């Protein structure tokens, strides 16, 4: 089991470093296995530094930078073991417009292998989707489906 963890860890690490640079347009990041007494329990520390900043623990990043780092790690895991679908609930909320574009580009590049379902209030993410499903509560307290056209979307 330890061997499997170590092999997976190295694969994810390679992917994470590359995806971080892609999402941040530069900078560097890394993950480090932290030895617990029991190798089966060892944790993983994330180090990340956007372009031009010094490499630090992920807790020193801003809200948007943290969300983007989590997305880089998520897709690094995907590359090792893809899953047929992925559901993301308002992960784009803290991102600015240019980071949303990078986020959406990344989703598009994984579309071959994975179906994405994205819950969002952000119009830029909606524009990038292939299909929009609306949910509403015409009668208070009861959810129903509704048709949505992008022009009339109230985010």
């Amino acid at each position, binding site marked *: 089991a330890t061997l499997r*963890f170590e092999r997976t860890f190295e694969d994810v690490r390679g992917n994470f470093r590359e995806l971080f640079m892609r999402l941040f347009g530069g900078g560097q990041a890394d993950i480090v296995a932290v030895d617990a007494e029991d190798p089966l329990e060892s944790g993983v520390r994330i180090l990340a530094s956007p372009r031009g900043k010094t490499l630090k623990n992920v807790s020193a990043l801003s809200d948007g930078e943290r969300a983007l780092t989590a997305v880089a790690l998520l897709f690094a895991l995907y590359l090792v073991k893809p899953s047929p679908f992925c559901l993301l609930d308002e992960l784009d909320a803290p991102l600015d417009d240019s980071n949303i574009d990078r986020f959406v580009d990344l989703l598009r590049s994984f579309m071959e292998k994975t179906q994405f379902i994205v819950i969002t209030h952000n119009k830029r993410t909606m524009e990038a989707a292939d299909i929009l499903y609306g949910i509403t509560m015409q009668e208070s307290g009861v959810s129903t489906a509704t048709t949505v056209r992008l022009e009339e979307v109230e985010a």
Partner: protein
Amino acid sequence: MRLKRLQMIGFKSFADAFELNFQEGITAIVGPNGCGKSNVAEAVRWVLGTQSPNELRVDRMEEVIFAGSEERKSLGMAEVTLELDNRDRTLPVDFDEVSITRRLFRAGESEYLINGNKCRLMDVTDLLVDEGLGSNGYWILERAMVETILSNRPEDRRFLFDQAA
């Protein structure tokens, strides 16, 4: 394998029958605050077999059953069905289409069905486990999960790597 359709009734705010047909590519779910979007994500987690109320923002599992509103009485059952396209035989069963159903009655009994046949929870999780589709995997992410992934404690992230191994 591909997601084809989600159907539910009586799950959280979905008192009436609700259906969502999935497409290739990116599907966006939109709507005002409180309309039931996150409930859809939780319905998927639930039908995949989660046993932890914590992942569904409830204290006891019965709270996922429609609890009533101003104009409606509470219901006695919640039911969610997820239909999958299995033509590429990713799931180890000899069917082109696989549907997984979960039901919970207010009295507490739960039922699981695969293609309409009653089965045990173990049959559902065994079916999905090779594909790594357990209920708390990295493929269903919300803001709270992002905080866990980025937490200060390195051991909090370990489960992600075990899922991918």
